[in-house]
C-alpha cells in the first residue's frame, strides 16, 4: 500500500491512471445510461427531473472528457512512452506522481458534488454541475446559477488542468531528452510521436481554459463582469475562450488513439506503417489547424459572414490531413498478412467509425448547413462517432495490445471478440439513429421531447444501443478481472511487435531495460532491408541500476489543491490559506528532498 502511495515508477503510475480512469469511465457510462433510459419515452420519459437530467449530461460530458478519455490515454503515455523510447522512467518521476494524485483528487472533488447538497443547505442531495460541459456564460453567472453546482465545475476543472499541464511538460521533456542512443526523432514510434504532439496541444490549450475559468471564478466570487452583459462584459468572449481550448481538446482526445492505431496495424499486418513521415507530419498539421477552427462551434452565435467563411474554410482544410492518415492506414493493411486479433479488430473498427464521424463533420464545416444541425442530436451523433467510434475504440485497441505488457497476462481473445462485436453493434445502434433524431428536429440537452416530433423510435433504438454498449463493457470488465483469477502469462513479445517495449519482459522489471539499447532503425525488433533485428538484451543487468525510492511529497502537495477548492467553495478563507500552505510546504520539501533514499 505505502509503496503505491509513494511510487514514482511510471509503470505503476500508468496502472493507477488506468484503473482510476476506467472507474470514471464506468461512472460516466452509467450517467449516459440514465440519460438514455429517460429518453426512451417522450413527454416526460421515465420521470427523471429536468434538474437531475441537466446534472447528468453535464457530468457525463465532463467526466468522459476530463476523467476518462484523457487519463486513459495518459495511462498509456505513462506506461509506454519510456519503454518505447528506451528510457528508465519519465524525466520528472515525482512530478508524474503529482499529476496522477491531482487528477484523482480533482475527479473525486467533482464527483463529490453528487452528494454534497446538504452541506450547502440545498433541498436535494446532489449539487452536481448542471450548466453543460461547455459552461456557457451567462447561464453560469451567479445570477442565473446561484448554487454551488457551477463552482464545483470551475474549481474541479482548474485542479484537473494542473494535472494535465504538469503531465504535458513532463512528457515533452521526456520524449525530447530521454530517448535511447540512436532513437532519432523520425525513428520514434508513431504512438510516441502522437503523444508528443498531444502534449504540445495540452500545454498550449489548457492555459486558455484556465484563464477562462479564472475569469469566470472572478465573476462568480468577486462580482467582476468579464462575461456579464449588464456590466459591459461579453458572454461571447467565454465561447471564444472555451472553444479555443475546446477544439484543440478534441485533438488531444483523438491523436493518442490515432497513435495507437498506427502501432497496432503494422504489427498485425506484418508491414511497416505506410507513409510513416506523412502520418507524423499530418499529425503535426492537424495540431496546427486544430488551433484555427474554434469558431465552427459558434456558427449560430452571429459572428458575421466573414468570420463564418474563414472558419468554414479552415475546418474543411482539416479534413485533408485526417483523410491522409486514413489512406495511409489502409495502405498499411494493403498487401499485409492481417491477423484478426481483438486489438486489430478495434483498430479497424476505429478507422471505419472515424470515417463516419469525419464525414458528418464536413456537414458541420459547411456553416449554413450547420445552422440546422448545431445543438441537435445530429451533433451528438457526430461527436460520439469521433470520440466513441474514434477515441474509445482506439483506446480499446491499445488495451488489448498492451495489456500483456502492462500486467504480464494475456486477455482472452474470445471474450475480446464478443466485446468487440457487441460494442460495434451497440454503438451503431446507439449513435447512428441520432443523425435522424437531429435532422427531424430534436435539440440536444433536453430531458424530454414531444411525441409529435416523430423521433420516439429513433430514441428507443439509441437507448437499446446504449445498453448493448453497457453490456459489452461488462464483458470487458470480466475479461480484465479474469486475468487476475485465471492468469495466462504473456511472453516478451506476444504479437511480434517491432518497437522497444516488446524487447523486455512482460511486465517489465522496475528498471525497464537491463542495458539501455542502441537504436538503429524505426523498427528495432524487425528485420528490415538495411538492419538486422536488435540483439536480445541481457537477462540480468550487467551493472547495478539505481532506482529512486518513492516520495510522499507529490501526494501531500496534491492534497493541498482540493483543500483550497473546498475553502473557495464554502467561502472560508482560512481553509483556502491552509490548502495553499500545504501546497507551498509540499513543493519546498519536495525540492529539498535528498536525491538518494
Amino acid at each position, binding site marked *: 500500500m505505502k509503496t503505491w502511495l509513494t511510487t514514482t515508477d511510471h509503470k505503476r503510475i500508468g496502472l493507477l491512471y488506468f484503473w482510476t480512469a476506467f472507474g470514471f469511465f464506468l461512472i460516466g457510462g452509467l450517467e449516459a445510461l440514465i440519460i438514455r433510459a429517460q429518453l426512451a419515452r417522450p413527454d416526460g420519459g421515465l420521470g427523471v427531473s429536468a*434538474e437531475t437530467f441537466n446534472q447528468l449530461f453535464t457530468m457525463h460530458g465532463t467526466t468522459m472528457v476530463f476523467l476518462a478519455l484523457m487519463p486513459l490515454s495518459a495511462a498509456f503515455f505513462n506506461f509506454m512512452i519510456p519503454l518505447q523510447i528506451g528510457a528508465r522512467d519519465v524525466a520528472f518521476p515525482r512530478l508524474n506522481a503529482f499529476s496522477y494524485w491531482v487528477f484523482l483528487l480533482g475527479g473525486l472533488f467533482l464527483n463529490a458534488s453528487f452528494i454534497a447538497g446538504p452541506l450547502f443547505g440545498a433541498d436535494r442531495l446532489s449539487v452536481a454541475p448542471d*450548466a453543460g460541459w461547455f459552461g456557457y456564460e451567462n447561464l453560469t453567472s451567479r445570477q442565473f446559477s446561484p448554487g454551488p453546482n457551477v463552482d464545483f465545475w470551475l474549481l474541479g476543472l482548474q485542479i484537473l488542468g494542473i494535472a494535465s499541464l504538469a503531465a504535458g511538460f513532463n512528457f515533452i521533456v521526456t520524449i525530447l531528452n530521454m530517448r535511447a542512443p540512436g532513437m532519432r526523432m523520425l525513428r520514434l514510434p508513431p504512438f510516441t510521436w502522437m503523444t508528443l504532439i498531444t502534449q504540445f496541444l495540452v500545454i498550449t490549450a489548457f492555459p486558455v481554459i484556465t484563464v477562462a475559468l479564472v475569469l469566470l471564478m472572478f465573476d462568480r466570487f468577486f462580482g467582476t463582469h468579464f462575461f456579464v452583459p449588464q456590466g459591459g462584459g461579453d458572454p461571447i468572449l467565454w465561447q471564444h475562450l472555451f472553444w479555443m481550448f475546446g477544439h484543440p481538446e478534441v485533438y488531444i482526445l483523438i491523436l493518442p488513439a490515432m497513435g495507437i492505431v498506427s502501432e497496432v496495424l503494422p504489427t498485425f499486418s506484418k508491414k511497416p506503417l505506410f507513409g510513416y513521415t506523412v502520418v507524423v507530419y499530418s499529425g503535426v498539421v492537424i495540431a496546427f489547424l486544430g488551433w484555427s477552427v474554434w469558431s465552427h462551434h459558434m456558427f449560430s452565435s452571429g459572428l458575421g459572414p466573414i468570420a463564418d467563411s474563414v472558419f468554414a474554410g479552415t475546418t*474543411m482544410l482539416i479534413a485533408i490531413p485526417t483523410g491522409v492518415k486514413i489512406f495511409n492506414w*489502409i495502405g498499411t493493411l494493403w498487401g499485409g498478412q492481417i491477423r484478426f486479433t481483438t486489438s486489430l479488430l478495434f483498430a479497424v473498427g476505429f478507422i471505419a467509425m472515424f470515417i463516419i464521424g469525419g464525414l458528418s463533420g464536413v456537414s458541420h464545416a459547411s456553416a449554413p*448547413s450547420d445552422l440546422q444541425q448545431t445543438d441537435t442530436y445530429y451533433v451528438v451523433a457526430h461527436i460520439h462517432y469521433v470520440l466513441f467510434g474514434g477515441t474509445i475504440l482506439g483506446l480499446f485497441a491499445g488495451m488489448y495490445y498492451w495489456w500483456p505488457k502492462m500486467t504480464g497476462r494475456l486477455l482472452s481473445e474470445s471474450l475480446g471478440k464478443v466485446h468487440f462485436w457487441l460494442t460495434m453493434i451497440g454503438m451503431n445502434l446507439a449513435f447512428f439513429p441520432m443523425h435522424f433524431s437531429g435532422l427531424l428536429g430534436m435539440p440536444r440537452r433536453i430531458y424530454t421531447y414531444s411525441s409529435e416530433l416523430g423521433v420516439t423510435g429513433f430514441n428507443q433504438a439509441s437507448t437499446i444501443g446504449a445498453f448493448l454498449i453497457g453490456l459489452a463493457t461488462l464483458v470487458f470488465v470480466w475479461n480484465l478481472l479474469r486475468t487476475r483469477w485465471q492468469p495466462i502469462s504473456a511472453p516478451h513479445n506476444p504479437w511480434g511487435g517491432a518497437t522497444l517495449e516488446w524487447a523486455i519482459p512482460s511486465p517489465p522489471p522496475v528498471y525497464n531495460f537491463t542495458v539501455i539499447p542502441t537504436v538503429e532503425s524505426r523498427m528495432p525488433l524487425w528485420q528490415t532491408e538495411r538492419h538486422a533485428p536488435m540483439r536480445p538484451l541481457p537477462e540480468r543487468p550487467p551493472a547495478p541500476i539505481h532506482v529512486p525510492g518513492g516520495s510522499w511529497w507529490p501526494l501531500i502537495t496534491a492534497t493541498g489543491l482540493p483543500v483550497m477548492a473546498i475553502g473557495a467553495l464554502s467561502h472560508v478563507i482560512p481553509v483556502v490559506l491552509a490548502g495553499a500552505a500545504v501546497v507551498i510546504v509540499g513543493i519546498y520539501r519536495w525540492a529539498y528532498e535528498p536525491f538518494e533514499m
Partner: protein
Amino acid sequence: MPLVLLAVLLLLTACGGGADLPQSTLVPRSDFSADLFGLYKNVFWWALGVFILVEGLLLVAIVRFRARPGRAEPKPVHGHTVLEISWTLAPALILVFIAVPTMRTIFSTAGHAPEGALRVEVIGHQWWWEYRYPTLNISAYNELHIPVRTPIQLDMTSADVIHSFWVPRLGGKRDLIQGRTNRIAFRADSTGEYWGQCAEFCGASHANMRLRVFVQSDSVFQRWVDQQRASPATPAKGSPAEAGQQVYRRSPCIACHTIAGLSQGRVGPDLTHVGSRFTIAGALFPNNAEILHRWIMNAPAMKPGALMTPQSLSPQDLDALIAYLQSLK
C-alpha cells in the same frame, strides 16, 4: 455496407414520409431553409460517395489480405510518394465543390431582408418568447404570426441567458444574446403551423421552451393583427368572467403580468389577448380550462424552474379567473 443502405433508406423515408413531421429540417418551407437543405444535400452526396469508396477500400483490404497459411511474408513497403500526393489532392478538390456553395450561402443567408420586410423583434426569456412588431404596434408571445410569401426579418436578443431561435422548416437557428442583436431573414412559402424550440441550453426548462409559427394568408394575418390591437375584452355584467376579472385584480398575478388597463407586470407574458392563443407556458400545453387550472395552481410542477409561484385560490375563484382569461380573445 448495410450501414450505407440503412442510411439511404432511412433518409429517403424521412424525406418522403416525414412531410408532416412538425420540426423536420428535411421539409423546408422557406427560402432560407431551402438554401440550407440544398447545401446539406450537396455535402451528403459527396460524403456518401467518399464513404462508399473509403469503407470499400478498407473492406477489400481486410478481406483480401487476411493472413493465410503458406503465404509469403509481406513486402516491407514504406510508402509511395505519388499515392500520398494524390490522396492529399483528391479530398482538397472535393472540398472545393463543397466550399464554394458554402461561402455563397453564408453571405446569402446573413440575415439581411430586402426593403419592406416585416420586422419582428424577438426577445428570449427563461423559458418563453416575446415578439414585438414595431411597425404594427403589437406584441405576441410564444406564437409568432407572420404573413405568407412576405420577407420577414427577425431582430433577436435575450432578456437573460443565451437562447437560440429555431424553427427548422423555416430556417436555421440563431442565438439570442443579451446586449446583442442577431438577425435572420426568410420568406415562408406556404401557410401552416410550424414548430420550433430553443436550441441553446438555457437552464432547467430548456426542453420546455418551445414555440409555434403561424404562417397565414394576408387576410387571416390582418384579422389577427386587428384582434391583437383591440383593447381587452370587457366581460359582460354578472358573467363568470366578470367575477374572474375581480379575482385577477386582487390576485398576485398583477405583479408579473400585463392586461392592458388592469395591470403592468413585466416578468411574465402579457395576458391581454391570452384567450386567442392555442398554447400556454412556452407552447408547451394546449390552452384549455383543465391545463389552465393545473398551471395556475402549480406551474413549477408542470414546467421545472418556472417563476410563477403556486397559487391558492378557492375553486370558485379559480373557475372564474379561468373564464376571464379565456374571454380575453
